[in-house]
């Protein structure tokens, strides 16, 4: 087109484009220069604003003296040329190419100015787009023919932004929250993003409150258990198990800070306060290269920033706990804060009766986040978390037969300082300094009888802790819409003191052993390249994570390649394959499956290698009209150098040399997952099914033969539904099912060796409530985990009523019933173990099942402003 115009108007163009013209200013927008030329010379200039970014600021060199040279200068790099035709100047696009320009900025909530993670930004015609990152930042290249892009997110009204943008610079978009009475909408419009792959779950926060829960407590980790591949050790435990991996194989990040212990009240509730959380992501496979350090999954949780505009508050009260949240601007549009606090109320409300019998217990959480806007391109975030559990059991309580006073206290503290910066529209970087501490303190006052007249009074105190300090950088460089680079690295200083015990007891001739401490450095570097090929049908994301551990006497390096390949079909379908290698440098030695703080975190040492996993997955996904989505995943995970112990560790004993009790082995998990999710409308819900196997193999366990892992569950099914009867009234139901957990049941029993030889052992003094109980038999186990406990399932119903919709003050009442058909699910099953009250020499041997939860109602009241 341009060539034709040139041929016809060669002569006149020379005269019009050579006309003398010197602009008044050397700086301005393209539009201002065009208008000045028209005004000064009287020459008409014709152009289309659809491909010309008129508000782009340009700088002249000062040497331009004609209309042609001025136009050439201001149009430089735009792919547009000036041509003179019939006394007019036409600004025409070069015939060979479509021109692109880059949009970037932050997606924020309209009222609070809080950044929105995972918002979709896309061209509604081509459906191509991107997703805002963890800091709400996005970069998108759009063709100059594009005159509209859409910004959308779960829970926010979409915004259609006309292009080109009104002015040069960042395009920050503000989305207004949907009316909270509207049905939940999940992942609408973000199908094109590679971020949303099959092994990745960005859980809608509404799931925290949409479905009925145990005692009405919002629980982030339990909500994730609705999805396929995610389960729990026990009924209603927050112990999250991903694809046959142990709870210690999950990397929990709270605002980017690793968390080592995630359970309150022995794992019945997770430490993540649902009211403080802004975004929850779970990666089950195809791990982005920036993540490392755990084998099975990444749970990335971000807390709320706080409103930049006005103060908001919220209070929730239930018969068991209370929580409060307040957020708002310290300096409007510059500094915001979000503070939330949660505490159990059992000790206050029932202290006189219940706790006298069973002991005193409380827990609390504090989440604080401060956000400072430095300028449009730079922000600082400071976040802090402390969670504490405390339990005191006195020896004089009438219900529990103890001879000692016990005080258990465990806590997590994390803090993070982040600096997020837009280096250029295509480069975004964030640097984070973090601190994480898990501290488990146990004190004991005991009286141990030594003889008739003599006793040993023991005052002991044990500590087990982990302390991390780290600095990390992550940088994203968007080359263009089809090519994006991510890279970064970090350093973590680990300080682990797994066992430290002190006592008032005179050690006498014993060897005084200092508590073992481990100081180690962990380094990581990563790079990832995300490419869209073949007209965006093929997406390839290769990545590499390099990890290294340096400790006294030990050093390990690890190259962990990652690859994701996705092929998109018509009708919103895709097939995806991925491979991830992961390495874990710190290990949890644990005996029980309940989430006790007795778990021991230990490092890789000279004798204990890092654990490694190699996972492969293949997935198919489809969406229908943004309402329904379905995915089918298959996975295979190979695990090597797994660390375990087949004895009960005494974590508060400096003499307990844990390294000598550790054995290494291998394992493999495989299975298939199915997910069907209804995401829009009055009726919403999720159906998930998982068929899985998890095996372990250790040379010195089970005769070297493989055996089912303790967390192996053949079938896991969850069904959760919510129906919005009226705008202010919803009803929900959920049903969860999991196959029985493996249990090692003796095949035979036979006479005990000491018993057969008339050797009695009541002078035992072992610190155990069962010390005087001596069985006369030994168990013969034909194989480990050869028996299955009963399946765990429960149906829960709930309803939520919203009041004060039009008022500034809103009220929410939630009520429901957990386990409505009163299913006694197995918590512990014991073969004769806890029947120690039986004093008969000969007695029948039984299986005893202990169930914690039967039908339990709940009621919550929430006040918001």
């Amino acid at each position: 087109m341009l060539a034709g115009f040139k041929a016809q108007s060669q002569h006149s163009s020379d005269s019009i484009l050579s006309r003398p013209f010197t602009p008044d200013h050397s700086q301005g927008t393209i539009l201002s220069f065009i208008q000045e030329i028209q005004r000064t010379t009287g020459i008409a200039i014709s152009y289309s604003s659809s491909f010309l970014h008129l508000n782009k600021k340009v700088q002249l060199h000062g040497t331009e003296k004609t209309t042609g040279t001025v136009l050439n200068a201001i149009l430089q790099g735009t792919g547009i040329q000036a041509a003179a035709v019939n006394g007019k100047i036409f600004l025409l696009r070069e015939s060979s190419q479509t021109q692109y320009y880059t949009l970037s900025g932050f997606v924020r909530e309209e009222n609070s100015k809080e950044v929105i993670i995972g918002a979709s930004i896309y061209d509604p015609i081509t459906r191509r787009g991107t997703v805002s990152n963890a800091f709400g930042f996005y970069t998108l290249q759009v063709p100059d023919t594009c005159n509209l892009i859409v910004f959308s997110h779960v829970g926010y009204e979409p915004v259609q932004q006309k292009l080109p943008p009104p002015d040069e610079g960042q395009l920050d978009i503000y989305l207004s929250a949907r009316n909270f009475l509207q049905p939940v909408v999940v992942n609408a419009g973000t199908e094109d993003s590679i971020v949303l792959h099959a092994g990745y779950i960005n859980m809608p926060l509404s799931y925290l409150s949409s479905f009925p829960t145990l005692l009405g407590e919002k629980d982030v980790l339990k909500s994730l258990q609705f999805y396929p591949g995610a389960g729990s050790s026990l009924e209603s435990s927050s112990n999250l198990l991903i694809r046959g991996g142990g709870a210690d194989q999950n990397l929990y990040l709270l605002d980017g800070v690793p968390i080592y212990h995630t359970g309150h009240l022995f794992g019945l509730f997770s430490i993540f306060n649902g009211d403080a959380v802004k975004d929850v992501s779970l990666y089950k496979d195809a791990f982005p290269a920036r993540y490392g350090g755990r084998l099975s999954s990444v749970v990335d949780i971000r807390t709320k920033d706080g409103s930049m505009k006005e103060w908001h508050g919220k209070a929730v009260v239930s018969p068991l706990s209370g929580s409060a949240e307040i957020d708002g601007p310290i300096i409007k549009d510059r500094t915001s804060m979000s503070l939330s606090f949660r505490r159990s109320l059992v000790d206050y409300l029932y202290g006189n009766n219940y706790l006298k019998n069973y002991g005193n217990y409380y827990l609390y959480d504090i989440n604080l986040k401060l956000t400072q806007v430095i300028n449009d391109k730079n922000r600082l975030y400071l976040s802090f978390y402390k969670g504490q559990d405390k339990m005191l059991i006195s020896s004089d309580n009438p219900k529990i037969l103890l001879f000692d006073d016990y005080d258990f206290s465990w806590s997590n503290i994390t803090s993070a300082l982040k600096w997020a910066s837009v280096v250029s529209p295509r480069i975004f970087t964030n640097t984070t300094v973090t601190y994480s501490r898990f501290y488990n303190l146990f004190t004991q006052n005991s009286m141990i009888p030594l003889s008739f007249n003599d006793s040993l009074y023991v005052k002991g105190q044990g500590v087990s802790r982990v302390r991390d300090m780290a600095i990390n950088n992550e940088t994203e460089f968007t080359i263009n819409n089809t090519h994006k680079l991510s890279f970064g690295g970090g350093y973590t200083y680990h300080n682990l003191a797994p066992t430290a015990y002190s006592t008032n007891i005179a050690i006498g001739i014993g060897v005084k052993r200092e508590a073992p401490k481990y100081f180690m450095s962990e380094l990581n570097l990563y790079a990832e390249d995300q490419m869209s090929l073949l007209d965006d049908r093929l997406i390839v994301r290769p990545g590499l994570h390099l990890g290294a551990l340096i400790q006294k006497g030990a050093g390990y390096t690890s190259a962990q390649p990652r690859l994701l390949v996705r092929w998109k079909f018509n009708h919103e379908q895709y097939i995806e394959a991925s491979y991830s290698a992961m390495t874990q440098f710190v290990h949890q030695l644990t005996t029980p499956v309940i989430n006790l703080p007795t778990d021991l975190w230990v490092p890789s040492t000279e004798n204990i290698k890092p654990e490694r996993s190699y996972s492969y997955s293949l997935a198919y996904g489809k969406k229908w009209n943004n309402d329904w989505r379905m995915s089918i995943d298959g996975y295979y995970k190979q695990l090597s150098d797994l660390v375990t112990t087949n004895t009960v560790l005494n974590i508060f004993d400096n003499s307990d040399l844990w390294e000598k009790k550790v054995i290494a082995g291998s394992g493999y998990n495989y299975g298939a997952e199915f997910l069907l999710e209804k995401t829009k409308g009055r009726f919403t819900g999720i159906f998930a099914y998982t068929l899985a196997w998890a095996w372990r193999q250790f040379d010195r366990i089970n005769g070297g033969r493989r055996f089912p892992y303790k967390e192996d569950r053949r079938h896991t099914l969850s069904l959760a539904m919510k129906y919005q009867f009226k705008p202010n009234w919803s009803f929900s139901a959920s049903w969860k099912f999991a196959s029985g957990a493996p249990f090692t049941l003796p095949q035979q029993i036979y006479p005990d060796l000491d018993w057969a030889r008339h050797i009695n052992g009541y002078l035992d003094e072992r610190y155990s409530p069962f010390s005087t109980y001596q069985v006369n038999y030994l168990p013969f186990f034909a194989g480990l985990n050869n028996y299955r406990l009963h399946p765990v399932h429960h149906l829960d119903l709930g309803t939520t009523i919203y009041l004060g919709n039009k008022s500034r003050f809103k009220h929410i009442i939630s009520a429901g019933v957990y386990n409505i058909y009163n299913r006694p699910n197995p918590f512990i099953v014991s073969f004769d173990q806890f029947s120690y009250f039986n004093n008969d020499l000969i007695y029948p041997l039984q299986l005893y099942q202990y169930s914690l939860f039967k039908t339990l109602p709940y009621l919550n009241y929430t006040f918001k402003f």
Partner: protein
Amino acid sequence: MRLMYLTVLSILLLTACESELPLPPGNGQPRVVVYSELTAGQTAEIRVGKSKIVQPGVDNAFDLVPDAVVQLLNRDSSLIETLGFGTDTSNRMSVYTGKVKLNPNTFYRVKVDVPGMRTVTSFTTIPNNFKVDLLDTSRTILNGRPVLQFHLTIHAQPGQRQYIVMEALKQSAQLDSFFTYNGVRYSVAEYEDLYERVKDQPGVVITKDTTFLNDYLRIPVYTQDENADNNQIGGLNENYNSILFTQLGKPFTTNLYINATALSSNQVEAIAPKGRVLVYVKSVSKEYYDFLLTYEKVKRNPGLNSLIQAVQLRNNTVGGLGVVGGTNQILYQLYYDVL
């Protein structure tokens, strides 16, 4: 801490609802159980019993096996002797004893046939004689507890591994007093009235007789030695049934601590019976050592509930259960009680 775990578990169980579950139908056949320590310098003593299938109706009573044929064989399976059945009715398992004195550094086979059950065979080698120097004993305090310390040097077998086990038992004793009156010997306990009348008369001779019973108390033992294999089981401040060492061709010196509370009996307390203290230092066959290592774990934690991983006992009996171990032992007998 194990205590912490158990305490928390106790609380959870107290708040939980207990229900009995039927045991699943059993599978497999009961097996013959064979226990024996073939000890150098002693005759063979082999305990034989039967296992029970875990199935509905099972209890913890075990049958005696008086009709077994128990044979001690050479390496080439030639018969050394057939052991005889002991008729002591107090035995909890049937005991078969031999007459042939066992030799150190010798391979033995054991074959047990019980009618209607699978034949059990096992073999072991009794370790060679070894030397222990008891350097010193002393009463002291270890982590607040009164203990008796044995300071020992254990010499190695050149060029081979030696598996050392140390344990302490207190064997109960029955003390009987007799008096001879008019040439007839009476028991003081049985003829107390007569004894009271005549005890001061001239010619009445009073004697005491001590009988050691087939009844033992296991005395907790301790070590502070990081080379002890008890490190694979628990902490060094804990008590154990036995202290276990794997010796790699070099002599080593160590301290064995035994709980001193039970050394002497006390009529009032009845913590420990009156008797003698037996302290064993044994060199055992590897199979027996492996069994004892896992046995120590099982005694500490039987693993019979769904929260704790079960520990499988090692054994060396083919076709049955139990262990036949070779032992060469040095015994220290201590008499703290007046017998």
